[in-house]
């Protein structure tokens, strides 16, 4: 059967993608950030996942205001990087895993999470920047990826609680898949940042680090945090952090299994307007 071996959490700031694409990673501004991912790149190469289930949010690229799905699973065989206005990022296309994605969709919907199934969509920096941070600049991404888009553009985003429980349902779906696949689940976005209005530039280092602590030690309690706390403490775009709870809910320790191992933890301010947080949690 398929199993989840680890979860990865990372911010997905567009400027990080631009820094990689334009060869700026060694510049003094960027170097401390990329150094925080050196371990992660080596780790991913050793782990050799068969599939990555990648939770991210679309930033008005695949989804305009015409259709706003709260949870959307990408079931296509291939996904192309979107032109977000600066031209598409020069990164490989994402190869999907339609069979596992369809299996997960069917299982999770029967578990009361009404996903939108997307057979055609472009993917944006929310998905490609985490891949770039974890893989560098390969000719092809290391394995098939299932894009899972969460609406955090139009308020309200799904609650932390809903995301956490969805993670559990995704885990159940993956574990009932009849092939011995090593699956990783990634939660992306955040940490504190605000991109709009006179309060733009808000960063809350203390709150972010408390969030990381609680995500590791008390995700169930953390999942009860109301939206307004994210907005007030972590900025209007800090609400992206609810997506981390999807990945966290899929781990062994909160589903009757063994305690997890914190393999890596990193925090850095700033990347452009944003605080960057990163965790690797392994099942045992």
């Amino acid at each position, binding site marked *: 059967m398929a199993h989840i071996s680890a979860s990865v959490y990372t911010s997905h700031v*567009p*400027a990080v993608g*631009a820094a990689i694409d334009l060869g700026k990673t060694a510049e003094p*501004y960027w170097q401390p950030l990329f150094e925080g991912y050196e371990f992660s790149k080596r780790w991913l190469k050793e782990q050799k996942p068969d599939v990555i289930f990648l939770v991210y949010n679309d*930033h*008005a*690229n695949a989804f*305009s*205001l*015409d259709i706003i799905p709260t949870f959307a699973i990408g079931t296509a065989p291939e996904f192309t990087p*979107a*032109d*977000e*206005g*600066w*031209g598409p990022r020069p990164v490989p296309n994402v190869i999907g895993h339609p069979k596992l994605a369809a299996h997960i969709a069917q299982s999770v919907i029967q578990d009361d999470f009404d996903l939108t199934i997307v057979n055609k969509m472009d993917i944006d920096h929310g998905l490609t920047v985490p891949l770039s941070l974890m893989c560098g600049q390969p000719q092809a991404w290391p394995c098939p990826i299932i894009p899972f888009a969460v609406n955090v*553009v*139009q*308020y*309200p985003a799904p609650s932390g609680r809903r995301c956490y429980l969805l993670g559990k349902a995704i885990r159940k779906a993956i574990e009932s898949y009849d092939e011995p696949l090593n699956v990783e689940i990634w939660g992306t976005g955040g940490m*504190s940042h*605000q*991109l*709009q*209005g*006179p*309060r*733009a*530039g*808000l*960063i*809350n*280092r203390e*709150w972010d680090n408390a969030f990381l602590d609680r995500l590791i030690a008390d995700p169930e309690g953390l999942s009860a945090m109301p*939206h*307004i706390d994210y*907005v*007030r*403490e972590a900025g*209007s*775009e800090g609400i992206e952090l609810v997506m981390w709870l999807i990945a966290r809910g899929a781990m062994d320790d909160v589903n009757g299994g063994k305690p997890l191992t914190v393999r890596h933890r990193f925090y850095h*301010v*700033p990347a*452009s*307007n944003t*605080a960057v947080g990163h965790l690797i949690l392994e099942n045992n």
Partner: protein
Amino acid sequence: MSLDKPYKDVPGTTIFDAEMSRLGYHLNQFCMSLMKAENRARFKANERAYLDEWPMSEEQKQAVLARDLNRCIELGGNIYFLAKIGATDGKSFQQMAGSMTGMSEEEYRNMMVSGGRSVEGNRYIGEKK
């Protein structure tokens, strides 16, 4: 019973909820059109004419022409959509975000490098620092 909107008292912040989304539908959809290179070129060639193809309010059009992002947001714009205008202008997200704060580009960049805007005094409207 009315909806609970506890985010209305966060200073300098507009939450893009269903009400704002309805107000800004055409403004945001105009922004989406700038994802195509040919539309970016057409917009740059004659901004007013391009905007007139959209059923936006005159206030929205003026706010776009003036690149007044705070005003755009007040009129229903969402920053992820408005970012396409900045992209068309060759601006970075940091330049766009900074433009809404009343700070110069350099001041804003320095603030971010020094750890960003503090949350202290920025949680509630009228709160004392």
